[in-house]
């Protein structure tokens, strides 16, 4: 089952920030990483990643620079900034809270019935 579109959109920011916290990366590689981690079940249309990256850059959570790849292609590499790392921490807290709340409900349910 594929992940719901709204959930994919909501998780885009923490996902991108988490991947960039592993190190500098570029659009194509970020998409591949998401697909690899989710087993292809969190696929959003590839182009939608770029507006997310640009928004994060404008919010000064990440920064970008043009660089030539090993194959000589011009690529825009993105790197997480301190402010981005702090924002990621915040996202982690929120997502963990949502997850643990749901988990408790779903685990408690059998006992109630």
């Amino acid at each position, binding site marked *: 089952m594929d992940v719901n579109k709204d959930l994919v959109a909501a998780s885009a920011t923490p996902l991108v920030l988490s991947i960039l916290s592993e190190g500098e990366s570029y659009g194509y590689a970020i998409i591949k990483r998401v697909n690899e981690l989710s087993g292809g079940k969190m696929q959003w249309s590839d182009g939608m990643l770029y507006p997310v990256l*640009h928004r994060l850059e404008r919010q000064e959570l990440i920064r970008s620079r043009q660089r030539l790849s090993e194959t000589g292609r011009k690529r825009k590499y993105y790197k997480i900034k301190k402010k981005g790392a702090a924002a990621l921490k915040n996202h982690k807290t929120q997502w963990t809270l949502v997850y643990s709340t749901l988990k408790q409900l779903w685990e408690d349910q059998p006992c109630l019935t």
Partner: protein
Amino acid sequence: MFDLNNQVIKWRQSLSDSETFRNADIDELESHLREEIEQLTARKLSEQEAFWVAAHRLGDTQALAGEFAKVNTSARLQKRLFWILAGVLFYLAATYLSIGASRTCAFMAAIAGIRGYTLIIIKIVCHASAFVAIVLALYKTIKKDLPVILFFAAAKNLLGKIIVLVITFLLISGIIAAQILPLRQTVGIVGAEEYGRMMLFTSYARLALQFIFPLVLVMVLFRLSRPKSPIAQTQFET
């Protein structure tokens, strides 16, 4: 025969038809598209199949434009402001260049010994045809997106900006000179009284032209509102 580069150029065009993408965005998306095509062709897909799959994975042009519009609000505004400014400048250029042309015509006709109503008619016809010719020429240039490309190319570096300033200055001086010199000469030849009468008739003609101009402008605007990209509608050529 499928030509990958040609298809990529068409695909780029379909993106730049939308106001929301900056050139840097399109470059970044193209880099992504080409990378995906490379990966797919390495997996034994033909270039054509790879292009189709990669373009499909990148997403529908309209949907992408919608997403980019949320982030690129200023790019959109900049493009619109550019066109407004270009429109005003083009109108001024067309007006003053046609005045210059009509005065030069009148001057030459006066030298040739033409007087009276014939001279007036020559002046008015010159004015109107020069105006129409200039507007058409500018319209042709606009359609090619040439001024936009040149403008942004010039805006990139200091030398480009200086060149634009110098050209603008020369143009303005040329326009002013074209209006003053033939005027002085013609007044000298035909006399102030006749020239005054000529100017009165020219004013009537210009009044008429200024009524016609908004109509022409509306028609041009209708032509300029480009149809939706054929690529976005019919998908890519096979």
